[in-house]
């Protein structure tokens, strides 16, 4: 099972990645998404789930059971696009609030025993080398924080150029 978080129009995603759209748990922008408000309710009030009931803050369990977590995002200021980042912000319940040391730094303990492989795909026409470097570092940092088994990053000018499904990478 794969989980895919993306920021494409749903129909464009389905035509570009038909196999993924059929076989995976897809998180795309189907309706309005609310901001994380930093209340920590997903850790202290409803552990593992965001308290905002808009359907974008409760897929920790899916992440806990998936082998691969794919993120496809436009690169914005060396990071993810607002929608993708919004969903990431709303799903920190995937990890526990408690801290531990990993690779010499403080991070959150995992909630689920299994670890996914994180694969990050960034696209954009005007992504500077500086932004590309920041994006790669961000994906690595996310992998460490989310306790991923491994992290891979690919960048391209468009989702079509990335076309990772057609290249038989899945």
């Amino acid at each position, binding site marked *: 099972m794969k989980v895919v978080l993306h920021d494409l129009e749903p129909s464009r995603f389905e035509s570009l990645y038909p196999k993924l759209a059929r076989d995976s748990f897809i998180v795309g922008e189907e309706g309005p998404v609310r*901001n*994380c*408000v*930093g209340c*920590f309710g997903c*850790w*202290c*009030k*409803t*552990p*593992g*789930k965001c308290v905002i009931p808009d359907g974008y803050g*409760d897929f*920790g*369990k899916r992440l*806990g059971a998936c082998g691969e977590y794919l993120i496809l995002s436009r690169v*914005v*200021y*060396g*990071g*993810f*696009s*607002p*929608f993708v*980042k*919004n969903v*990431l*912000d709303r799903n*920190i319940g995937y990890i*526990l*609030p*408690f*801290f*531990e*040391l990993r690779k010499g*730094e*403080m*991070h959150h303990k995992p*909630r*689920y025993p299994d670890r996914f492989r994180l694969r990050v795909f960034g696209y954009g026409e005007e992504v*500077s080398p*500086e*932004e590309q470097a*920041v994006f790669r*570092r*961000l994906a690595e*940092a*996310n992998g460490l*924080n989310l306790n991923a088994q491994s992290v891979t990053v690919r960048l391209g000018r468009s989702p079509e150029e990335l076309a990772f499904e057609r290249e038989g990478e899945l």
Partner: protein
Amino acid sequence: MTALIHGSPKAAGGNSEKILQLLEKRLTGPCVRVDTVRTGPETWEALADCEAAVVIFPLYVDSLPSHLLRFFMEWEMDRREQQRRALSLYAVAQCGFYEGEQNRIALEQVSCFCRKAGISWQGGVGLGGAGGFAEMPEALLKPLTGVISSLAEAVNRKEELPSLQFASVGLPRWLYLAAGNQSWIRGAKRFGLKKRELYQKP
């Protein structure tokens, strides 16, 4: 005029606001506060009147919070469309992890934003152990208030920070980590949950 941009989605009382207040006290010139959640034409007009700005924000998943990304995108568009005047931007990123260095990527993102928006990036500071602002005595916060003072001096002198600066609370990491873990258990109690219930796998 210097804009103090509150980059947290929390309405009031958060660590970013506390840092904003500490900074405001140390600035000698006039300041205007700018909100990043509720924005409108007056937001962009207020920013257009400033020659400098400081954005203070929490670290969310190793980077900028999503609402701040949207704010930056709108601000960039306004600056392009209205051909706004030169502006200098500083940043303060703060996180609950002990290491201030964990804010580096978010500060680099602000630098990327500045390049796109035609803003002069003046550098930033990354504060670790910012959970301490809620509970710790002033003495333990000194390393953090020290870099806030350095930042204020740079803003007052209209100077660029020599490099990104990072700081943490005046506690050993093991002790901060243990105190942090206890704080989650207290947090759960407020909602009638026991420690073991925080480990639920919904």
